[in-house]
C-alpha cells in the first residue's frame, strides 16, 4: 500500500529532478573553474576533463595577478557593490516604511511611481545618465556607479519591503510611540529587525546584478583606477587573441566574493522567500 507522503519512489523522483537541475545550473561554473587550472593546450584539447598532473597549470592566475591591477579591480567592485547595497537597503526600507506606515495624499500613486522602475530597464536611460554624469563631473568615479546602481535597485527593494513592513504589527509601533521612541528609533530598532529576512532577500537580488554588471562600468567608469572586476576581465578578451587562461582565472576569482556575501545572506534569504508563501 502506498502512503500519501514519504513514498520512496516519489521522493526519489523529486531528488532526481533537483539533482539534474543542480548539475545543469552548476555545469558552466564547474567548467570555468576546472579550466582555469589548466594549461592553454589542455583547455582546447580536453575542455571537459578536470586538471591532471600533466595539464595542471596556474599560468592563468599568474597572469591575472601580474598583469593589470586586479586587486584594485576587486576593491572597486567591492566598494561599488557594498555601497550601492547599503544605500538601496537604507533608502528602500525608509521609503517602504513611509509608504506602509503613514497615510498621506498620493500615497498609492507614490508607491506606484516608485515601483515603475521594476518594469522599465534603467539601461534605456543610458545616454541621459551619461550626459548627466558628464555635466556633473562624475565620469570615471565610483560614485557614478554607486548612484546608478542605487537607483536601479530601489524600485524592487521598495516594492518588496513595503509589503513586508505592512505586516509588522501596528500595536508594536504604537507601543513605541507611547514609550516616547522617535519615528527613527521605531524604524531602526523595532521595524527593521522584524523585516530582516526580507532585507536579506532584497540584498541578494540587488547585489548579484550589480556585481555582474558590465554595461555601466564600461560606459561611466572605464578608467584604470575605477575598473570593476567584470570590466577588468574583459582586457584578456582581444579581437584576435583571447587569453583564456587569464579570463577563466579572473572569472573564477570573481565568483568568490559574491559567493561569500551570498552565504552570509542565504540563511535569512530562505526565511524571506518562504515567509511570504506560507503564512
Amino acid at each position, binding site marked *: 500500500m502506498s502512503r500519501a507522503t514519504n513514498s520512496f519512489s516519489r521522493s526519489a523522483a523529486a531528488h532526481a529532478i533537483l539533482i539534474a537541475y543542480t548539475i545543469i545550473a552548476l555545469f558552466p561554473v564547474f567548467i570555468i573553474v576546472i579550466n582555469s587550472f589548466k594549461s592553454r593546450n589542455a583547455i582546447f584539447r580536453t575542455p571537459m576533463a578536470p586538471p591532471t598532473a600533466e595539464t595542471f597549470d596556474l599560468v592563468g592566475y599568474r597572469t591575472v595577478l601580474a598583469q593589470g591591477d586586479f586587486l584594485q579591480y576587486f576593491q572597486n567592485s567591492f566598494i561599488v557593490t557594498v555601497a550601492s547595497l547599503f544605500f538601496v537597503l537604507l533608502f528602500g526600507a525608509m521609503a517602504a516604511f513611509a509608504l506602509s506606515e503613514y497615510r498621506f495624499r498620493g500615497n498609492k500613486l507614490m508607491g506606484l511611481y516608485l515601483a515603475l522602475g521594476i518594469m522599465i530597464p534603467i539601461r534605456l536611460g543610458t545616454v541621459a545618465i551619461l550626459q548627466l554624469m558628464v555635466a556633473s563631473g562624475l565620469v570615471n568615479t565610483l560614485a557614478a556607479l554607486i548612484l546608478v546602481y542605487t537607483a536601479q535597485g530601489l524600485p524592487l527593494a521598495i516594492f518588496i519591503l513595503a509589503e513586508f513592513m505592512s505586516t509588522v504589527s501596528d500595536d508594536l509601533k504604537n507601543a513605541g*510611540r507611547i514609550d516616547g521612541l522617535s519615528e527613527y528609533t521605531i524604524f531602526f530598532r523595532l521595524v527593521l*529587525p522584524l523585516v530582516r529576512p526580507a532585507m536579506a532577500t532584497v540584498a541578494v537580488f540587488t547585489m548579484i546584478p550589480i556585481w555582474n554588471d558590465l554595461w555601466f562600468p564600461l560606459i561611466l567608469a572605464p578608467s584604470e583606477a575605477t575598473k570593476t572586476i567584470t570590466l577588468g576581465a574583459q582586457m584578456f578578451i582581444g579581437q584576435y587573441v583571447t587569453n583564456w587562461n587569464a579570463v577563466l582565472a579572473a572569472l573564477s576569482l570573481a565568483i568568490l566574493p559574491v559567493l561569500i556575501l551570498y552565504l552570509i545572506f542565504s540563511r535569512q534569504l530562505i526565511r524571506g522567500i518562504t515567509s511570504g508563501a506560507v503564512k
Partner: protein
Amino acid sequence: MGSLNIENVKKSFGPVDVLKGIDLAVSDGEFVVFVGPSGCGKSTLLRVIAGLEDASSGRVIIDGSEVTSTPPAKRGIAMVFQTYALYPHLTVRNNMALGLKQAGTPAAEIDKRITAASTMLSLEPYLERRPAELSGGQRQRVAIGRAVVREPKLFLFDEPLSNLDAALRVNTRLEIAQLHRRLKATMIYVTHDQVEAMTLADKIVVLNAGRIEQVGAPMELYNSPANLFVAGFIGSPKMNFIDGARLGESVKTIGVRPEHLSVDAKKGTWKGTVIHAEHLGADTNIYLDCEKAGLLTVRVFGVYDAEPGATLYATPDPGRTYRFGEDGQAVK
C-alpha cells in the same frame, strides 16, 4: 490626578466619519469601559485619547490640561494592546524599562518601579526572559507591567483579553480589577465583550456608529436602558423585542429580558411552541415561537425539560418590561 474630558471630538478617515461628536467626562480613579459592536469607533476613540490618532476636531483634556496636540509619550498615559506589542528583542525587564529610560528616569527609580510592578504581577521569575519565551497570559501581564511602571495618569486598555483563552481571560480580568483597586488609577478599557464591561466597569459607555448611546453604571444600563440599542446590547441572551401593535400596546416596541420571562406548561400570557432548548446546567435557554409575540428567548434558571415541539406558556414578570417609542428611545 487622572481626570479626562473629551469635548465634541470628531474623527473622519477621508469621507468616512468614524466619530461623530463625542462628549465625555471621566473623573479621577474611575474605571470606564467603552463597549460597542465592531466598527462603532470605540478603538478609534481610545487612540484619539492616546494621541495615536489626531482628532479631526474637538478637544481632549487630561488632568486639566489640554493635550489635543501633545504627542502620546507626553500625555501621561500608558496603553495595553490586544496583541501585547512587547518589544521582541528586549527582555521583560527592558521592555518595562524602555519608556522610563526614554523619559530620563534615574536608574535606581526604574529598578524600584520594576521590582514593585513585577511583584504585583508575579513576573519576577521571568524578568530576564524575552517575550518569545513566555505564554500568552504572561505576555499580557508583562504588557500590563510595562504600563504600571510608567505610573500614568491614565491607563488605556485596548481589548487586552481578546487574544487569551477563556480560562485565562477570567483570571486576567480578575487581575485587572485588583490592579485598579490597588492603584486607584483612572482606567479606560475598550472591549466588545459585555461580560468584561459589566464585571469591570464603574461606568460603561455604550458606543454605536460613532456616537455615544448611553453612559452609566452597569446596573443602570441593565435596569433602565435609554434606547433599543443599549437594551439589545447589554444582557445575554439578548432582550426580546416584541412589536407593540401585535400586543395591542400604544408604543412601537415592547422589550422583555429572557430572564424576566417565566414558563409554564398549562397557563400564561403568551402561548408558544418550543423550537429549541439549550441546556447550560445552571440555566436553560428556551426558544419559543409564540402566536402573539413571535420568537421569544426564555432563560430559566436550573434544569428545565423542554422538548422541541412541546407547547409552553411564557409570562413576563410584572413591572420588568420595557417600552420603546417610534424613535427607539425608552418611554417611561
